[in-house]
């Protein structure tokens, strides 16, 4: 387990800021202690410092996971955000999309969100903006990328995609293995 290098940190923060903007500092400085990011087996883990200390006791080969896994770095040093980060993205999300109950299941299966399933969307969403997807009961379902800006969404026909799917909570069942 090692701290992230500058480059890696930059890449990761860029990705995160797509979804939560400048709220990243809330992730690091928290009232209940300092949290940090650590890299282990190409995955980025978000842990508090108390756990960090104890985690050093565990040997590298035997450590499977610490704290929360945010995502992983691919072979080409791109950062891929995992669904496991949802709990931390959701409260700080800047742009949100609400999905109708009928289309909820479809999104949970990994499909993109169509205009027909769009319930609400925050104003001033730009195109290709990172968004967090909620159900109508305000339960976070996953995140994605807005395919159209808010104004365009109003005009477009019902069968066109408005949010590209990136991660959803259905992955906990569908791809449990990829979590580690």
């Amino acid at each position, binding site marked *: 387990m090692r701290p992230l290098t500058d480059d890696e940190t930059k890449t990761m923060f860029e990705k995160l800021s797509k979804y939560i903007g400048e709220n990243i500092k809330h992730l690091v400085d928290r009232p209940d202690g300092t949290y940090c990011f650590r890299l282990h087996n190409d995955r980025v883990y978000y842990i508090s410092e108390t756990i960090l200390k*104890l985690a050093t006791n*565990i040997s590298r080969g035997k*450590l*499977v996971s610490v704290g929360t896994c945010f995502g992983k770095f691919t072979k080409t040093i791109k950062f891929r955000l995992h669904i496991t980060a949802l709990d931390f993205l959701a409260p700080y999300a800047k742009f949100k999309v609400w999905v109708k109950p009928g289309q909820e299941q479809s999104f949970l299966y990994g499909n993109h969100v169509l205009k027909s399933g769009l319930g609400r969307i925050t104003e001033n969403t730009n195109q290709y903006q990172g968004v967090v997807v909620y159900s109508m009961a305000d339960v976070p379902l996953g995140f994605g990328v807005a395919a159209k800006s808010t104004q365009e969404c109003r005009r477009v026909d019902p069968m066109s995609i408005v949010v590209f799917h990136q991660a959803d909570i259905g992955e906990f069942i569908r791809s449990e293995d990829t*979590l580690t």
Partner: protein
Amino acid sequence: MGRKLDPTTYVKKGPGRKSRKQKGAETELAKFLTDEDTAPKRLSSRSRKRAGKRAQVTKKPKESIEKEEPKKGFTDENSEWLKPAKRKREVGQSDNEDDSDSQWEQEEDEGQEGGENNKGKKLLIEGDGDDDDLVDDYGALEDSSEGEGEVDGDGEELLPIERAARKQKKLQEAMGQESDDDDEDDDKRKSGDEDMDEDDTVQANLDEMDKFILPGAEEIAKEGVLLVDLQTIHQRIKDNVDVLSHFATKREEGKERTEYLSLLKKDLSTYYSYNNFLIDKLLDIFPVSELIDFLEANEIQRPVTIRTNTLKTRRRDLAQALINRGVNLDPLGKWSKVGLVIFDSSVPIGATPEYLAGHYMLQGASSFLPVMALSPQEGETVLDMSSAPGGKTTYMAQLMRNTGVIVANDASADRLKSVVGNIHRLGVTNSMICNYDGRQFPKVMGGFDRVLLDAPCSGTGVISKDPAVKTSKDESDIQRLAHLQKELILAAIDSVNAESPSGGYLVYCTCSIMVEENEWVVDYALKKRNVKLVQTGLDFGKEGFTRFKERRFHPSLKLSRRFYPHSHNMDGFFVAKLKKFSNTVPTTAVEKDGEEETKPSEAVEVTANSSDEDGPSKAGSKNKSKKQKPVPGKPAMSQKATANGKPAKSIGKKTTNPSTLKKSEKPTGQKKAKIAKMDGGTVKVDGELKKSNTVKTEGETTKELKEGSRFEKKGDKQRKSPTQSKKRMGKNKFNKLKKLLKKEEVGQ
């Protein structure tokens, strides 16, 4: 519609074909009877033959009759409409006869003779009706008497016939007709028999029971060859259990209890598909009647239960959301605030959006119990040694409100994936997941406030989930598992920090009901370590055994709890909560077992050896409370090491639990290093001396010594951690020890 329409008797048409039929039968019979009244009885050839049979029949049914009554299970179902005595008997007898093997197996005396007689009797009675009018019912009756399932039908159909037959008898008796002398006699005898039969019921029962239990080798061989009817076996089991419960009264002379038992074992293994080993074990644990309940409970699934994740939602919100999805649920019980039991659901419970959002977890009710017993507090350091698939780990995290640290360990890397998944899904942030063998644990990390050990077990409590256990377990499996569990519990105890301000607890649990895996392991731990049993905090459940067969356990074992599927409607489970009251590891002076608290006069080398092992081998955490080294009598050591706290203390203080333990070697190196450090100036000398000792005695310990230094470093780290209390001995204490040692040296 094939009935003759008799203008003289008008059949009133009522609702329902059946009732009409019955009416028709009655009226027809009545007609028949009245005819007899007016005219002398005319018997057709068939009737004459039947009358002849009746003469034979009436003698026999007496015996078999009474036996049927108490034995036959169908009495339960049909008790509402079946009237006692005659009717029951007849139906029962026909059933008996229909037990396919009743004729084959002499054990089934019940059915044999009676059955045949019954059949004849039945035909007789039915035949009366047949004579006059062709009634489809009666024909059906006759056929149906062949099948067991037709009992009800028979019973219902017989009612009017029986009434008619009774009437007939009465009439005959009253008339004193001689056309059927035999009949009369038979009737009289029958009626007399009925009364007597009921009186003799009890005795006849006994006779029948005894006869039932009689299968000799031949019969069993026959049984083996022929396909045995499960119904028969089931009935035999019930009867056998009955006899065994009232053995003094119901036994057969000359037959030992073991014979009954061996037959029961054989039947149980056949009926419920267990192997003999398991049946033997279960018979040891349960009384015979309870055993049947247990086996039956294992055939059906326990109800599905879920646990609300209070980190993300509340139970009533979750219940509301699920009800809206079409799930039928209820709170689990008074004893749990987070449990819900699912009765049925229109959506898959493991795939609802609430499940995916981490609002609840599918978990068996029995798995709530060890975590409730452990009750980890906020801010503690907790270890879960066998955490997969993560239900208990996440429950602990929610009780701790995501504070403190949880180390979730499992030996299987594959199953750890589910732990990772569940931890992330339920939003647990204070956890570490690692993949060690649990036995390595005090070495990796120690000083936990609480430890949960859900040991790998034979799974005899969860047979309903995995029926393969019925046939796959045998003696060697259980022993191997028990051995592993003993090692694990010792490692777990060593990982607990007894001086933890808020904890020092270990919960040991298994999903098995075998005494070898439960009470025996805990008892072993009590002997080997400074732990004691405490209340689990679970107010229901059966107490653990304090003695079992030839073994005697510590009396505090009754504080542990056992749960059974048949009595608590949850998986079979065992929970024991232990408190560690001292970080020292009790040892015997000599390296070999069997010697306790050897005197200082024992061989120097021996004591040196044991001290080498014992000293470093301290319970669990890397505490540096060397003062607690309970190594009795180490004058040898004291000679070598001037300021060696170990021997001094050992002499000064006796261990509370004299045990015949041979210390694990792992702590050896640690301890030595720590002691070496503590001793300051004399470090190297002592260390080398010790090293040389260990080399002489056990080559392995040298390795550990080296490892010890590595561990020592880690130990430092751990010491600095706020969650661990200060373990170093103070200066004054150290000086006191020195003085003690010197005194001893002088003394000896």
